[in-house]
């Protein structure tokens, strides 16, 4: 069992953050808002003008209140870093976000579990995006090679008139373990929602993705996109749902799952529903092995077969 003294926790998280692709200098920059949480300990919480971050440690995690003030245009991306460095642990993040009207922000979250043998990471988010506000959220996970981790991110997002929510969830480094992703967005008039999930399942990874978009306001637009690559005995199931409930609402569900291995299993369940005659929702799903023509195209440029497959997989998950 790895043990970590409190004084080393921050350094350990920063090191792991950098190894996972994070920008170390961003965590040291005073103009950048940031939050670093290890297990249930808040190691760093710095806001900047226009942002308020409040935290409360609990027995199993941290409650976070994140406010972006009305009209605030946040210049630098906000960096969030969550992780559990020991082999075992539980981290429950309760997140409440309020991006007020006309605000704009980019948030980059890194979730780091390099040694996980028995770790659970849960996030329960309640997010409100104000009228004409823009919120871009990118969450990248770095897992180790043990696969003993369960990741359960759940979010309910309400997007006000003319507001924009864009989120990208990436889990392509290390073993996924078990992923149960569940994001649901409600869009008002002319609001835009874009949900993107990219995951690379290997060995016995188990991936479940559930993306739901409700286009409740006139002219609302939504895109639910998922890209899964499954090898070895990995399993993946993507459920993409979009509901066109208002005139001129436009939605699209787009899922690609590549299966690269005889025992890997992929499923896709697109649900498109329209309750207004002027709404339109479409879907496309492609599940199967890696396209032979793509592989041979790259081989004809001199790549060997494994290199060609790697280029294709990296492209899908880029």
């Amino acid at each position, binding site marked *: 069992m790895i043990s970590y003294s409190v004084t080393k926790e921050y350094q350990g998280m920063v090191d792991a953050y950098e190894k996972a692709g994070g920008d170390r200098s961003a965590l040291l920059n005073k103009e950048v808002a940031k939050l670093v949480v290890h297990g249930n300990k808040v190691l760093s919480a710095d806001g900047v003008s226009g942002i308020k971050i409040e935290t409360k440690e609990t027995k199993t995690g941290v409650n976070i209140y994140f406010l972006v003030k009305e009209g605030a245009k946040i210049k630098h991306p906000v960096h969030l870093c969550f992780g559990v460095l020991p082999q075992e642990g539980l981290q429950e993040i309760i997140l409440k976000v309020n991006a007020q009207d006309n605000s704009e922000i980019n948030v980059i979250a890194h979730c780091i579990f390099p040694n996980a043998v028995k770790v659970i990471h849960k996030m329960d988010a309640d997010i409100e995006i104000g009228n004409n506000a823009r919120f871009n959220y990118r969450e990248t996970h770095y897992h180790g090679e043990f696969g003993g981790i369960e990741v359960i991110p759940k979010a309910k997002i309400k997007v006000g008139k003319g507001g924009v929510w864009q989120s990208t969830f990436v889990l392509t480094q290390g073993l996924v373990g078990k992923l149960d992703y569940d994001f649901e967005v409600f869009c008002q008039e002319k609001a835009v929602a874009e949900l993107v999930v990219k995951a690379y399942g290997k060995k016995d990874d188990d991936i479940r993705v559930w993306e739901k978009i409700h286009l409740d306001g006139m002219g609302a637009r939504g895109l639910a996109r998922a890209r899964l690559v499954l090898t070895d005995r990995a399993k993946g199931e993507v459920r993409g749902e979009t509901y066109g409930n208002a005139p001129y609402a436009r939605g699209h569900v787009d899922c690609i799952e590549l299966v690269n291995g005889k025992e890997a299993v992929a499923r896709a369940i697109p649900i498109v529903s329209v309750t207004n005659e002027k709404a339109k929702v479409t879907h496309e799903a492609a599940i199967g092995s890696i396209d032979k023509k793509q592989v*041979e195209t790259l081989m004809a440029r001199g790549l060997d077969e494994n290199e060609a497959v790697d*280029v294709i997989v990296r492209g899908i998950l880029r």
Partner: protein
Amino acid sequence: MLRVENLQLTLNGKSIINDLSLHVNKGEIHGILGENGTGKTTIAYLIMGVNNYKPTGGRMIFEDENIADLSVSQRAKKGITLAWQEPAKIEGLTVRDYLKLGGNNFGIEQVRYYLGTVGMDPAQYLDRDIDSTLSGGERKRIELASVLAMQPKLAILDEPDSGIDIVSLPFIMNGIVEMNRRGSSVLLITHNEKVVEIAHRVSVLCAGRILMTGAPAEMSQWFKDNCRKCLHINVPEY
């Protein structure tokens, strides 16, 4: 450079390529002129070794080596490549990265040059994916640029003109001539007799067999006079 001798391909009991012999000389643009269904793409696939096509007879000698048992990669590493009639779409692979795949260690200026040669504005295309957001014609021109960038010894171009609008066709032709000027031999496969005007020699293909080889003007005329109204086709049944 390439000698194809008595090549045979039989699929499901049907002869697709029938005793086909062909020589492509070093530094030559060699046109293959054939109507739809005469086996043009099959020849390209057999020489490149793609689509599980393996000859059921004959030999393919490239620089004194029989390449029939080599993998696609091995053939490419020996200097053979293929521009597909319908290039693949690969999500997440940018034009920039696709052109650099060929292994030549060149910089971005070279990539720009190759795109410019086929009439594409680098600023507009470098960072775009070679996926379904590009039109068929755009993908064809990028395919040709990627072959240019690879600087192969032998480029097999399978109908580089198909799906290309009349404005873009000169750029395609320019790309082929430039490829040849830079030292690549070219096997130029088409059903368009105008396209083979840039070839040094042209072979006429019918029902999986080379009927004759000669000067482009002479072969084109013969093709127009005889093949346009002929029904000798040979389409693989799968």
